[in-house]
């Protein structure tokens, strides 16, 4: 079943205000084309989750669309603390988001539990620290301590997470939605499979025959996918292995802009609201920074050896 559509249509049809969203990425493959569209369509009241959140989450928070964040970490990497995140938590600008805090072990395990139909999962971290002392909207269900029925040892259980929608960006997908990925995974596979619906953004749509040439690269099968959008350069300023590099210069621009409320608003206007779609974004990027800069981000040529599944 052909599920190819524009990002605009995908977000419009499948993301609702109040939804619980998993948004994949980890510098590697953030689905920025979709995130900008969420901002344009002002889908608000969202609960968002991912391990190691970055500029994309900061931007959604700054845009006032986030009610709750199930997270582990939010920073701009080498550019320091997330400005919008700080403003929200320190000064309630534009409003104070609710944060439920876990770790880069526990949160992926909770997504894995959601993906695998487990009600909860035991984890060995967090115990003894203030991460157990702070509870937000998940309340008493943030975690439970039990004595293991096997050996009596204190054991921490954390609940499965089941987002309404997962949005991921991958290298390639076919029209049915089978999504293929390689390189740094973060919690993308677990998060996508934990969700009830998956929106797959990709660098290129390939035929079902190409998917079948290397089916071990598929991380989400078609029957979980509700929309496939082709968005080359769709993860910029993040990167996609084999396609383009991370754009550190642009990351600096975001940091500088988001230092002030006005700068952040101008940034959103320039790169999101005044922009129609990813094509216009890319054209604006090239116009502003020059084709040479754009070209420099494009990946080199370093191909793997093909393998065979034949018998």
């Amino acid at each position, binding site marked *: 079943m052909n599920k190819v559509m524009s990002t605009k249509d995908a977000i419009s049809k499948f993301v609702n205000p109040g939804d619980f969203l998993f948004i994949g990425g980890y*510098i590697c493959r953030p689905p920025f084309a979709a995130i900008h569209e969420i901002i344009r369509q002002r889908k608000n009241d969202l609960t968002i989750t991912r391990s190691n959140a970055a500029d994309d989450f900061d931007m959604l928070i700054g845009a006032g669309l986030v009610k709750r964040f199930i997270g582990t970490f939010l920073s701009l990497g080498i550019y320091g603390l997330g400005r919008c995140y700080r403003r929200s938590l320190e000064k309630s600008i534009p409003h104070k988001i609710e944060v439920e805090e*876990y770790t880069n072990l526990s949160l992926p395990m909770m997504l894995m539990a959601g993906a695998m139909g487990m009600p909860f999962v035991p984890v060995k971290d967090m115990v*003894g*620290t203030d991460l157990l002392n702070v509870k937000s909207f998940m309340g008493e269900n943030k975690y439970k301590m039990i004595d293991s029925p096997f050996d009596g040892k204190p054991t921490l259980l954390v609940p499965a997470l089941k987002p309404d929608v997962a949005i991921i960006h991958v290298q390639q997908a076919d029209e049915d939605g089978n999504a293929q990925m390689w390189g740094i*995974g973060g919690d993308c596979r677990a998060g996508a499979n934990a969700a009830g619906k998956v929106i797959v953004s990709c660098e290129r749509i390939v035929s079902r025959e190409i998917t079948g040439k290397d089916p071990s690269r598929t991380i989400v099968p078609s029957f979980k996918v509700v929309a496939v959008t082709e968005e080359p350069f769709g993860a910029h300023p993040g990167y996609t292995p084999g396609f383009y590099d991370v754009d550190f210069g642009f990351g600096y621009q975001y940091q500088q802009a988001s230092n002030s409320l006005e700068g952040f608003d101008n940034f959103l206007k320039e790169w999101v609201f005044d922009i129609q779609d990813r094509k216009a974004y890319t054209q604006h990027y090239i116009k502003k920074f020059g084709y040479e800069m754009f070209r420099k981000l494009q990946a080199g040529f370093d191909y793997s050896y093909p393998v065979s599944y034949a018998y």
Partner: protein
Amino acid sequence: MTRNSNAYIKPELMACCGAREIKDNNVVIVGTGFPAMSANIAKHTHAPNCILMQESGVVDARPKRPALSVGDPCLNPGAAMVGNLLDIMGMFLQAGWVDIGFLSGSQVDKFGNINTTCIGNYENPKSRLPGSGGANPIGALAKKTLIIALHDKKHLAEKVDFMTTPGYIDGPGARERWGLPADTGPECIITNKAVLKFDKETGEAFLESCHPGSTVEEVLENTPWELKVSGDVHETEPPTEEELRVLHEILDPHHMIAIYEKRGYI
């Protein structure tokens, strides 16, 4: 580069202190900057078979430029394995395969507990920090954690405002009571003035060695708790010729580590 081959800056000394804690064949979780530098010094000197991994999913990367984050694109091509967070944090760290983890934070206390969540009150923070990320599980589950900190009364604390990552928590037996794996916990705090080691009996950090140019008095003055001093406190061994050669010629020809001087590591 025209550096004096025997000259070194404080961050280089600190990186060497970290490197010396790594044994051959150790499995090491690294981030960027210091930890990566320490682990690579070890790999190029006394621990050629140590394995470096990044929490994002990378094992034994062969980056052609210094990684600026644990998800940096340069970590992908050439790595021995590129999986995901669950592989590194679950399959390797939680399952007990990681020997060494590096940690740092805005506050480190005498039990080696670390704060990367907030300064001030959690509900109404003076300063909101990034949060745990991988720090808590590394502190909970790596066999040894090496803590990097600035040595002053702001970054060291009697008690952290928020305990993001466990050191020895509130002292002897606490890790065991909470069910953390046996024989894990902080090994040392490497600061810009000294190396503090941990007394496994009390869980408290004590002064093991002062870096060349720092004195015991200076260290005590800049530590916000009553720091115990080792009976055989000594000068930190400066970087060896071999360590400096590796640093200057192979790992950091552009002297990027100097950025830490600007952050106060002097």
